[in-house]
């Protein structure tokens, strides 16, 4: 009989069996990360209707805003702002629905019980969800940028490729950190989770400056820059991809990169703490297995 790689030898008793080495804990959690990311990476091309809707919905919004800019006879760079915003919408929708609200769906499907009974940290599940979701959204965002740029003839002027790449990655880390925080908050809730995810969708389009530079928000811009990784990241990305357009950013891109670093650390730490807190409360109040409430 072939021995399972997950069995680490016979133990004298339950206490010894539960005493795992650090290496074993790490390996098991890394397997959990891979396991949770796998369905999203594989599924990103498997479910054709998802591909269509995840590209079509942000692209339809992008088209609408591009046509508004055209109706207003705005400078052509603004069309590019809308295309970039449309691409980032794919990430925001993914964070909101497939990170924030995911544990709510998982509870309905009965997966949440499995996560809690498995000898892994729930953080591994969230990291796996984030890695898979990031890959999935990146493919959608890329398609939106390519199609949008070709259809609407967007001209980019990029001088600092390295900084652009760093800002983009930092934005995604901070954004998915926020998603993990939201997932932990939503763990405690039932139908409220779904409705709250719905509630955040459009106002963040506004505050995040997805279709109009965040600078236009005036005093609200400071709030957006202080709270939303999407607002900071997109503001910096716009400055770096449309360097021919002057005075569109709230802060210089380097300062915004520094803000993103802080946000990424804070959101990830908060997610860790809040996950522990809400898990304890949800266990105590018996909400982990209460479905569709």
């Amino acid at each position, binding site marked *: 009989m072939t021995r399972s790689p997950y069995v680490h030898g016979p133990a004298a008793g339950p206490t010894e069996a539960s005493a795992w080495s650090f290496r074993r804990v790490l390996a098991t959690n890394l397997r959990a990360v891979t396991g949770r990311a796998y369905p999203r990476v594989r599924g990103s091309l498997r479910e054709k209707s998802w591909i269509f*809707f995840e590209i079509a919905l942000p692209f339809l919004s992008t088209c609408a805003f591009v046509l508004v800019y055209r109706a207003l006879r705005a400078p052509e760079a603004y069309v590019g702002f809308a295309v970039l915003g449309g691409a980032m919408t794919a990430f925001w929708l993914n964070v909101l629905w497939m990170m924030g609200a995911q544990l709510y769906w998982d509870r309905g499907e009965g997966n949440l019980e499995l996560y809690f009974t498995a000898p892994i940290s729930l953080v591994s599940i969230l990291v796996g969800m984030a890695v898979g979701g990031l890959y999935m959204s990146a493919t959608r965002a890329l398609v939106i940028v390519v199609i949008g740029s070709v259809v609407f003839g967007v001209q980019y002027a990029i001088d600092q490729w390295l900084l652009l790449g760093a800002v983009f990655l930092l934005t995604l880390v901070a954004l998915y950190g926020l998603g993990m925080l939201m997932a932990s908050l939503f763990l405690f809730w039932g139908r409220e989770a779904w409705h709250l995810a719905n509630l955040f969708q459009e106002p963040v*389009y506004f505050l995040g400056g997805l279709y109009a530079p965040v600078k236009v928000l005036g005093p609200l811009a400071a709030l957006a820059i202080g709270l939303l990784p999407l607002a900071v990241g997109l503001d910096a990305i716009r400055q770096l991809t449309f360097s021919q357009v002057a005075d569109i950013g709230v802060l210089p891109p380097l300062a915004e990169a520094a803000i993103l670093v802080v946000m990424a650390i804070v959101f990830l730490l908060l997610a860790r703490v809040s996950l522990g807190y809400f898990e304890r409360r949800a266990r105590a109040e018996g909400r982990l297995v209460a479905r569709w409430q």
Partner: protein
Amino acid sequence: MNARLVDRRGTSGWRALATGARLGWAIESNWTDPFLFAVYSVARPIGAALVLVAIVWIVGGGGRADYVGFLIVGSACWTFVGGGLSGLVWAVLDDRERYRMLKYVVVSTAAFLPFLVGRGAGQLVAAVAGFLITLFVGVVFLGVQISFAAIDWRLFVPSMAVGLVAIVALGLAVAGLCLTTRRESWSYPEAIAGALYLLSGAIFPPDVLPGPLQPVALALPTTWWLEGVRRALLGLPTPGLLAGFDDTIVLIALCTSTLVLTLVSAAIFRAFERVARERGLIDQTTGS
């Protein structure tokens, strides 16, 4: 016995509609306290309207007050489209996949179609708050010129009533389709609303559309509905293509296109319902 049966059949349509509406409203609103529900109902449409207003400000400065009015009325009305379409489609998907009650409704004596319309009406009712608050924000904070006394009620009431019928009819067609699809179809309402948003002149006049799409825009009841409501509230027609039609033509076009849509949607719904019954899809859950 027979008389009671006849009586039940006679009233079951209205009773099913009322029961569905009560159920839909309860599901829509009882997940939280009234305050948070009120915030929830208005945050999304206001957020959508503010994005557009920010665009107008950044491009046109303060000099495009006319366009802000156009956008605010369009955004306010669009809350009904989102609510109407998703209310009906999610009623099918939720009742089949989550609550698993659809099969019981179908085999009960209640008329299915009126029940579904009532069940989906909850979101349409919730959209009223979004509509009113978006207009309020537009008037009070953005200087949109809408005077209660100057509203053309003879245009507003029929435009709004017929427009809502068109939205429900469209929602029914999509809900019928979703009787035969898997639960991934929860995105359909948003996709269809997104396409209509582009084609109906919700946030820009139909003239901005590429030439081949302009006749499509003119064939849609939502285009005429928005135009009727805009004229009634703002007192002005949309500049360009639609300005060439007087109010009577707008109403006639709205009624005609809505009648066609309603007949076609009812036929589509019945056809998909028949397919779903024949293939045994009513009681199938498609968790994946």
